[in-house]
């Protein structure tokens, strides 16, 4: 069982290593990840919103819906643990 798991993991590892040479180098300023949205957020955060921290500005204003879903996820996890582990008694 463990030998079969090791072989499967090594097979996946060889496939992943094969694609490393196509990825952009570490710290490349021309990488496609920073081209469209990264530069747009850096330039337009201070005129639009007026606070200094770009990460908080994106998290709470540009992507506010994702943060609302986030808080609902953590609330659901809290309620689930309470319902599973409360033995006897009321909520």
């Amino acid at each position, binding site marked *: 069982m463990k030998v079969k798991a090791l072989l499967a993991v090594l097979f996946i590892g060889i496939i992943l290593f094969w694609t490393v040479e196509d990825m952009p180098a570490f710290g490349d300023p021309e990488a496609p990840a920073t081209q469209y949205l990264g530069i747009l957020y850096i330039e337009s955060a201070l005129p639009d*919103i007026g606070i*200094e921290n770009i*990460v908080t500005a994106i998290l709470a*204003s540009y992507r506010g819906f994702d943060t*609302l879903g986030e808080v609902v996820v953590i609330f659901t996890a809290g309620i689930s643990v*309470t319902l599973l582990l409360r033995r006897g008694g*009321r909520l």
Partner: protein
Amino acid sequence: MRENVVIRTVSRLAVPFIQVFALYVIVHGALGAGGGFQGGVVFASSFILMIVAFGLNSVRKRLSNKWIVVYSVLGITIYAGIGLLCLFMGGNYLEYGVIEAILGIPHLHGYLLDAVEIGIGITVMAVMTSILCDMADKGGESS
């Protein structure tokens, strides 16, 4: 853990400073590194220190189950409530610029962001404390 004088004294000294630092991290989300999630977890870690040093009942006395549930609902109500306020004033849901344009107070966009971060911090603190209190229970707990 209960009999050790050094641990009890150091914990009693350290808990207020940890809580003040957690409030600092929540409120300074707009000026530097920080925010709602980070500050909420630091605040919950002060309660975890009290559980480890003084036993479970010291936190149960101060934060009963009813208040934990009230706090966790209060935080998410603040977040969704500010979104609904933007909807009533004529914009889209969670569009803070509409309130700033109508009321005319400068920098209101930044202040609304701070209020939303405080709401997130309250919910995260309550849920982290509740998870640890439920798991630290030994066999059988009623209300």
